[in-house]
């Protein structure tokens, strides 16, 4: 343990710097430009924008997207420095992140999660399958993607999207200043 702490003190963790001007927008699609206002209206308190809770539902992904999402909490990306955090219950959440196509078996669970998020709520689609089902869209076992089921606000493209893209997408959509 001592060794590790010594190395850490010497090297430090190179937390990735993000400049909002430099963000590459190729992989990010924002459908609703008014997100920031919508969020601010939720509470008169402007500090609220520094506390955004995210709920993740996997409705049929191959689990690569999940690996990338959980990477957001590691010291490299550390999304909590921007005020985003993952929460355990939809009642606590502001954002629903959906990964993967929508399978028949998961459809009602996905809807229930969405219904339980208090208004105003936002939907973020992660990965190429989430929007229209990708390669799985015609299968007997899926119902395509979430585009015709939930109002999608942000889409992060990629198979799987890289953590830096997910983070950049959130920052861009919610108009945050990057630190």
């Amino acid at each position, binding site marked *: 343990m001592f060794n590790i702490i010594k190395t850490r003190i010497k090297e430090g963790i190179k937390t990735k710097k993000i400049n909002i001007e430099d963000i590459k927008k190729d992989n990010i699609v924002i459908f609703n430009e008014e997100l920031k206002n919508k969020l601010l209206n939720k509470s008169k308190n402007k500090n609220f924008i520094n506390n955004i809770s995210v709920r993740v539902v996997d409705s049929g992904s191959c689990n690569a997207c999940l690996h990338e999402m959980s990477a957001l909490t590691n010291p490299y990306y550390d999304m909590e420095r921007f005020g985003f955090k993952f929460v355990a219950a939809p009642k606590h959440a502001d954002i629903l992140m959906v990964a993967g196509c929508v399978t028949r078996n998961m459809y009602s669970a996905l809807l229930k999660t969405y219904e339980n998020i208090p208004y105003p709520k936002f939907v973020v689609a992660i990965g190429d399958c989430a929007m229209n089902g990708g390669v799985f869209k015609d299968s*007997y076992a899926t119902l395509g993607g979430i585009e015709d089921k939930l109002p999608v606000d942000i889409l992060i493209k990629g198979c799987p999207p890289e953590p830096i893209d997910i983070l950049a997408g959130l920052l861009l959509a919610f108009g945050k200043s990057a630190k």
Partner: protein
Amino acid sequence: MKNKLDFIQNLDKDIKEAVTENFYNQDNELVLKINLKDLKKVCLYFFKDLKFYLLSAFAADESKNDGNKFKIRYIFSHSSIDLFIIIETETGGTFPSLSEEIPALNWYEREMKDLFGLIPEGHPDPRPLMLFPENYPQDIQNMHPLRKDYPFNFRPEFKKYGEYSYNKDVKGDGVFNILVGPVHAGIIEPGHFRFSMSGEPILQLEIRHFWKHRGIEKIAEGKTISETLSLAEKISGDHCVAHSLAFLTAAEKILNIKIPENALYIRTIYAELERLLCNINDFAWLFQDAGYSFGAQETFVLKEDIMELNKYLSGSRFNKDILSLGGINICGNIDNLRKNVLKEKLSNFKKRYLNLKKMLLNSSTIGERFEETGYINKETILDLCALGFAARASGVPSDTRKEHPYLIYDKLHFNSKVLKNRDVFARLLIRFYDIEESFSIITQCLNELPAEDINKAGREYADNNVNNTVDNISKNKSKNDRCIIAKDDKIDIAQQLPTNSLRSWALGYCESQRGNIMHFVELDEKSRISRWKIRDPSFHNWQLIEFAVIGDIIADFPLVNKSLNLSYAGNDL
């Protein structure tokens, strides 16, 4: 039993008489055709008497105009001989259930019932498996998606059809149930668990899976090999190299493509990098679930560094899209520059990993939580034919790299460690050994990596069959530094294949981090996929958890679960 060729001669007389036809499909694939009435006798002979392991069981639709006809195949194997026994039988609609005698067949038979409408007679638990009674019509005779006459994209109306029923209820004073899932608290895939508790200890756990059933096997039907290859990467995202490797092994066997030496080495390096990444990831989550955040975050940093290395090597953090039929895509090539970077990084990783390991082994918190938690008995492992490190932590050797060497594993020096402690800690220790072996294997490969053309075989194959693709390859070859092939440049050899006169099949297998992956690939006359059966090790190992948690407290469930760290996506397909 050591000799492959006269294996059939040494079988019991009874069994020999039951076999109507036998032949070697590939070098190590012995097919025994039998009649349906002898199925029970022959399967039990291999499973009980010869102590063979069940590796897969599946049906295939062979219907012609004159009625329904299905082939059922059971694949058995043994750790002491490099041979797969494929027991093949035909049926029109029913077959005898063997789940009582071979518990590992339980889910396989229910799967055949759902997807093909074949009835396992005498099955102890004939509830639907992946076609949930709530979401799929159960009364319609035709809801059997893998039959050939089921239209590719037919979807029945979405509404509530029925109710789910649990298998067995635990009753008594003070017994209560805790239901968890399908949507979990963390960033985890969906699955449903019902714990029956009395006080703190768990009396019974029932798992309900297949929430993410996506119908991959049906989607692949009629697709070309390269289209299917991209599908294979989406079976279980963290094991994309292992699954595509298993699929390609089968396809290359059928088409008789020989892979250049250099590509074999590179494939091994990527397979081991994936094993390393997954083991480090499990390692981190075990720290996290035991409440040891410092260790967890430190290990997540290591994991992130490995993924960054992957991205440097292949352009993808999961090493997606690097394998191709007959070789390696140019973007996955390991040239001298990358070889040196890889060596340097690995020695750094190894140093950091050893520090972490030392810290973990010195921590009393970890010892207290992990030792004597989640026992899995050897009998359970053998009955359920568990695979990979789960089996090895309970004293059962299971490592495809040793039993059925593929790629260049027969030339490498490595051990496959077997422990007898059978608890969570043993499964962690096995991971330590695996991680160290992976480091050593990659180093061995890098030292012996021959300088050769990685796509020679694929190109020769293309040369013989198509003319226009050769330009594409040489074009790609010139931009080899950090080159990522655009989709359109890729050669689609399989699309131009000469037409086979017969349907042909082969087995593809490899050892993933979780255990043996088995693919059965059958190509039709036009070299398109006719049947593709995928079996992820999770399909066998999930059922272990029901036994591992009995008697433990519910707070230990995350540890038991993470100690096996199974894939939901690979299980559900």
